[in-house]
């Protein structure tokens, strides 16, 4: 991973008096796989559209390779987009849709043919080149959209939920395929998804957004293990989030009990958010730091998901062993599995 390729500096986007993006600062390195992750309507597509050149930020700057590109139109940017709504050309067949960019670039006819067929094979649609796009299923259209962008071998590929319409199996296959393309060809990927698992498994860098504000930027490991606030913790994997009070360094009270933890640097009696992942609870038949009663059990494939009432709160617990509903159990957490987060005072 080398030099900085794209930089967004204090980008603000306002639509009809609504602040959609609030001071976005983001650096994207060359050949990086960066994912924008966040709930629906948080501004992922808008950020992508600013990079693609379809929106000009209300204020702030966009740099590409050190050059300010705020007013450079899309067709002059070395960027291709896989649109969230595909935007395939209805008057062209699959082959011509994919060949569109190459024809504009005046690539030789025989090369167009090889490259189009190559990228069709890549998305598993060999033999579909004569089809009209409205004869394709949603998932097939989505794959044509991916092929149409990739075939141009852009320096940067913007992908707006490119696998959203695919079934789980195909989705996994395409994830591996896209990651392989990105690594082999060395394209910078800016990827949008609201699927946290997809973000964690594919990316070099994950950017978590909410309400037009970047919540955290980091490697998937950072984001998962060291969430910076309750929102990130909650969005990345299910979490138990509960209010607590710091008594001193490494000493916190929540659910009416004192716990040992590993966090330092908070003020005495400071109000904090305490985050505990469902898989970090130790369930015992008796004893434990808290005692509770099993309310429900759901089989989730690899593990059981249990709702356990303890000390006046409902806790989500994942365990490979199930307990019967109504059973009395003990719950414990190791100190380093208790994550303490500063309260967001603004909200």
């Amino acid at each position: 991973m080398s030099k900085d390729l794209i930089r967004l500096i204090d980008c603000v986007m306002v639509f009809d008096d609504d602040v959609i993006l609030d001071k976005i600062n983001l650096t994207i390195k060359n050949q990086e796989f960066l994912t924008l992750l966040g709930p629906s309507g948080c501004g992922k597509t808008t950020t992508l559209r600013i990079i693609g050149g379809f929106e000009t930020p209300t204020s702030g700057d966009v740099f590409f390779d050190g050059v300010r590109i705020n007013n450079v139109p899309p067709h002059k940017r070395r960027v291709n987009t896989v649109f969230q709504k595909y935007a395939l050309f209805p008057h062209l067949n699959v082959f011509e849709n994919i060949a569109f960019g190459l024809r504009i670039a005046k690539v030789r006819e025989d090369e167009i043919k090889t490259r189009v067929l190559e990228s069709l094979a890549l998305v598993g649609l060999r033999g579909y080149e004569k089809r009209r796009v409205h004869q394709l299923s949603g998932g097939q259209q989505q794959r044509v959209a991916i092929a149409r962008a990739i075939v141009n071998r852009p320096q940067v590929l913007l992908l707006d939920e490119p696998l959203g319409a695919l079934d789980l199996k195909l989705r996994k296959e395409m994830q591996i395929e896209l990651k392989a393309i990105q690594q082999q060809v060395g394209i910078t990927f800016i990827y949008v998804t609201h699927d946290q698992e997809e973000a964690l498994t594919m990316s070099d860098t994950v950017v978590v957004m909410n309400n037009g504000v970047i919540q955290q930027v980091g490697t998937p490991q950072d984001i998962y293990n060291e969430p910076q606030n309750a929102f990130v913790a909650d969005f990345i994997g299910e979490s138990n989030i509960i209010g607590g009070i710091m008594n001193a360094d490494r000493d916190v009270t929540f659910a009416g009990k004192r716990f040992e933890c590993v966090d330092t640097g908070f003020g005495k009696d400071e109000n904090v958010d305490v985050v505990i992942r469902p898989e970090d609870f130790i369930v015992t038949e008796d004893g434990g730091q808290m005692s509770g009663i099993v309310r429900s059990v759901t089989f989730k494939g690899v593990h059981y998901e249990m709702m356990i009432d303890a000390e006046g709160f409902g806790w989500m617990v994942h365990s490979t062993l199930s307990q019967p509903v109504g059973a009395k159990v003990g719950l414990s957490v190791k100190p380093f599995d208790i994550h303490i987060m500063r309260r967001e005072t603004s909200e």
Partner: protein
Amino acid sequence: MRRRVSFPYVGWMAVFVVVPMVLVLGFSFTSADGGFTFENFSEMTKYAPVFARSIWLAFLSTVICLIIGYPAALVMSREKPIVASAALMLLMLPMWMNFLLRTYAWMSILENNGFLNQLLGALKLPPVAIINTDGAVLLGMVYNYLPFMILPIHTVLHKMDKHLLEAASDLGADSVKAFARVILPLTLPGVLSGVTMVFVPSVSTFVISKLLGGGKTMMLGDLIEMQFTGNAYNPYLGSAISLVMMVMVLASMTIMNRFGDGEESAVMM
């Protein structure tokens, strides 16, 4: 159930469409004394210049409508919705006024001492003699039929997914290339509807040529009208001319439908 619902329409079609067509067809092959004949068609050859003139003027009016109408529809589609609907409204407004009235209005504007020449006079410019020329007929046709060109083109442009233009731009197309490779092919069905909807009434118009062309320059519509109401009274010849015109229009529409590439064409709206 479906049959019963469709019955009134079938009845309507039979009485007001099929029967008249059959009558026209029958009349075309009937001589003045009531016998069967091809004479009506051979007689028509002496009106070849009228055919040529009508087709030529209708062609010109269609081309002019297209040249004015396409950019107008394009500009309208790029405006904010409120501006676009206002423009559409202005375009439709004259169509609610009687066709004859509009054409008479043009007559009084274009007359030798009409409004236009008074205006030119006031500006110390030499007067122009437009009334009773082909130019005046063309002007009348373009004025009356332009909305029929703009509306269908506007409709397809309006329905076109705006993301397609972003996709084209994303793939390297500047606005000229995006127009040629995306907008134009996608609006072709609208253009074909517009062309048909302007050409057909243009080729058969008779009021405009009579009022603005002064009646000296005859068009197909005038010729047919003459056979039914004029001194030339010959409904058999009139029917034959109508039949030929109908076949011509049908043929040209079929050819244009081919251009429209089947499924996406909407010539008849």
